[in-house]
C-alpha cells in the first residue's frame, strides 16, 4: 500500500510540466490511480469473493483467491432473514436520527458562538473540545446507569442520544469555524434588511456553510453507523440491535457462517457508499460553479 502511495506522492510534487512528463502523465496518473483504488478496495474484494462461496470453502486449506464453488444463494438467505433486516433497519434509523439531532443542535450553537460574545463562551468551547476526547467505550457503564434510570435501556432513543452527544463536539467545532469565516457584513446586511436572527441563520448563513454541514453530516452518520460498544450494552432485544452488533453472531465460537457474515457485510456497505457518492454528486453539481480549475 505504502509503495503505491509513495509513488503517487512523488509524481504529485512535479506539478510543472517537465519534458515528456506531460505526455506520460496521461498514462501514468490513471494507472497509479487504478493501483491506489485497488489497494483500498482489496479487502472488500476479498469480502465480496468470500460472500460468494460456501462457508466451508472460506476456511479451506490451502487457501484460494477465487471460490472453488460459487454460491449466490447466501445473498437471498441473508436478505430473507428478518433478523438481518431488523439490524439493518436499526442501523439506518439510528444513524439518520443521530445525524439529524446533531445538525439541528449544533448549528444554532456553532452560529451563536461564532457571532456573539457572552459570558461562558470560552467555557462552552472548552467543554466541546473536552467532550471530543471522551470515547463512549470508556463511559459505557455510566451510560447504562443513566438510561436505566430513565427507563430507556433497550430503546432506539438511548443509542440515538448517545451517538448524537458524542459527535456533537466535532460538528460544533467545524461549523463554528465556518460561520466565523463568513464576513460579518453578510448578516449585518441581512439584519438591516429585516431578517431576524433565525432567518439570517437559515436563509443566509446556512447555505454558505453547506460544505461544513455536509462534513458534519457525513462524519456523524459514519460514527453512528460504526458504533459498537454502547449498542452492545444498551440493546439487548434481538430485533433492535444494529448491524455492527448483530453481524457478529454469524461467526462465534460455536458456529461459523462466514458466507453470511460477508454477504451481510457487503449489503451493509452498499448503502453507505451510495450515500457518499450521492452527496459528492450533489455538491459537485451545486457548488463547483465558481471554482477555478
Amino acid at each position, binding site marked *: 500500500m505504502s509503495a503505491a502511495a509513495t509513488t503517487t506522492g512523488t509524481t504529485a510534487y512535479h506539478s510543472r510540466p517537465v519534458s515528456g512528463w506531460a505526455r506520460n502523465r496521461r498514462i501514468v496518473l490513471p494507472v497509479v490511480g487504478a493501483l491506489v483504488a485497488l489497494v*483500498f478496495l482489496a479487502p472488500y474484494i476479498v469480502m465480496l469473493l468470500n460472500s460468494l462461496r460456501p462457508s466451508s470453502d472460506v476456511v479451506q486449506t490451502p487457501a484460494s483467491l477465487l471460490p472453488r464453488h460459487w454460491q449466490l444463494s447466501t445473498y437471498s438467505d441473508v436478505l430473507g432473514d428478518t433478523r438481518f433486516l431488523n439490524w439493518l433497519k436499526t442501523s439506518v434509523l439510528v444513524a439518520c436520527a443521530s445525524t439529524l439531532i446533531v445538525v439541528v*443542535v449544533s448549528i444554532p*450553537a456553532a452560529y451563536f458562538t461564532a457571532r456573539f460574545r457572552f459570558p461562558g463562551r470560552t467555557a462552552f468551547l472548552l467543554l466541546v473540545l473536552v467532550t471530543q476526547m471522551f470515547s463512549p467505550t470508556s463511559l459505557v*457503564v455510566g451510560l447504562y446507569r443513566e438510561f436505566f434510570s430513565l427507563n430507556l435501556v433497550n430503546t432506539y432513543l438511548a443509542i440515538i442520544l448517545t451517538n448524537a452527544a458524542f459527535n456533537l463536539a466535532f460538528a460544533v467545532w467545524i461549523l463554528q469555524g465556518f460561520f466565523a469565516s463568513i464576513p460579518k457584513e453578510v448578516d449585518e446586511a441581512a439584519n438591516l434588511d429585516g431578517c431576524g436572527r433565525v432567518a439570517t441563520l437559515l436563509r443566509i448563513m446556512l447555505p454558505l456553510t453547506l460544505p461544513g454541514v455536509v462534513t458534519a453530516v457525513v462524519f456523524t452518520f459514519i460514527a453512528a453507523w460504526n458504533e459498537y460498544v454502547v449498542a452492545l450494552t444498551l440493546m439487548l432485544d434481538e430485533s433492535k440491535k444494529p448491524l455492527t452488533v448483530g*453481524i457478529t453472531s454469524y461467526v462465534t465460537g460455536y458456529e461459523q457462517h462466514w458466507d453470511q457474515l460477508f454477504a451481510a457485510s457487503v449489503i451493509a456497505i452498499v448503502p453507505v457508499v451510495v450515500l*457518499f457518492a450521492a*452527496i*459528492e454528486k450533489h455538491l459537485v453539481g451545486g457548488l463547483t460553479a465558481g471554482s477555478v480549475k
Partner: protein
Amino acid sequence: MPQHDPSSPAAVTAPTVTAGGGALTLEPAGAPRRRRRYTGTRTSPLQALLWLGPALALIVGVVIFPAYELVRAAFSRYSITGLRLGGAGGRNFDQVLHHPELGTVLLNTLVWVVSVVALTVLISLALAQFLTKDFAGRRFVRYAIIVPWAASLVITAKTFVLVYDYYYGTLNLVLTKLHVISTPIDFLGSDSWIMPSMVLVGVFVSIPFTAFVFVAGLNAIPHDVYEAARMDGASSWQVYRSVTLPLLRPALLVASVLNIIYVFNSFPIIWTLNDRNPGFGHDTTITFMYKLAFKSAEKDVGMSAAAGVFNVLLILVVVMAYLKVTSWREETA
C-alpha cells in the same frame, strides 16, 4: 465526501482569507495571517442559553454525567459479578498503576498512536496531492478510497482477520504466489507481526478521512499563490515546502489532532485482530481497560473504571500538549 469540498474543519479555510487577499509571499503564511480577530457582538447569557441549550443538555446529560458515574465507579469496590461491595478509596487507581503489564500497555499505546497517526498523515498528504490532479478515472479513485470509511470498523476488522490468517489468509496466499515469502507469516499470532498488522489496518481505515481533509485544504489554496512562487523560480519541492505545507498547516493540525483522538480511542480493530493473543501483550490502554472489566482474571469493574479515568486524562494531556506545541490557540481562539 464531496469533490471540491472544503469540508475541512473550519480552520482550513482561514488561510484563504489572507492569501486570497493578495498577500502573496513565499513566507510561511504565519505572520500575515495574524488573524482578523473576531469580535462578536456582546449578548446576554440568557440569549446564549437559548441557542446553546440543546447542545449543552446533550453534552451534560450524555457525556458529562456518565463521566461522573465513571469516576464514582473508579472509587468503588466491585465483585467479579459486577455487584458493588462498597467504597474503595484509591485502591483501584493504585492497582492500575501497579499492574505488571501497565508498562507494556503504555508502550503499545505509544507505538500504536504514533505510528498510525504519522503514517496516516504522511500517506494522506501524498494521496491528497494525487487526488487533486486531473486524470481519467479520478472520480472512481475517490469513491474507492471512501469505501474503508463507509464500511463499519467491525466489518473491516473481521475481514482483515481472514485476510491475515495463517492458513486461509489472502495475504499469505498472494505473497506466496508472488514468491515474496516461501512459508506463510503468522500475521496475527506472531509477537513481532501482530502490531505492524494492526497498524496497517489502523492506517488503512484512517486514511480516507485524513486524505479528504487534505484535499479540501489543498483546494482552498489559491492558484495564484503557486503562480507567484513559480515566477520567483522556485522548484517544485521548494514550492511544496514553502507554499503548500504552510498553507496546509491548519488542515494538518485538524487531521492530526482528530486522528490522535480517534486512534487512541480505537477499540474494534485491536479487539478483533488481537483476540487470539492471550494476556495484555498487544493491548492498548483502551482494550486494556475493557479486558480488566470483562475478560482478564482481574474482572474488576472498579479497576477498569480507574483505567478509564486514566485514559481520559492521558488523551487530554496529550492533545493539550500537542496543541500547545503547535500553538493551536492562535488558529481557533
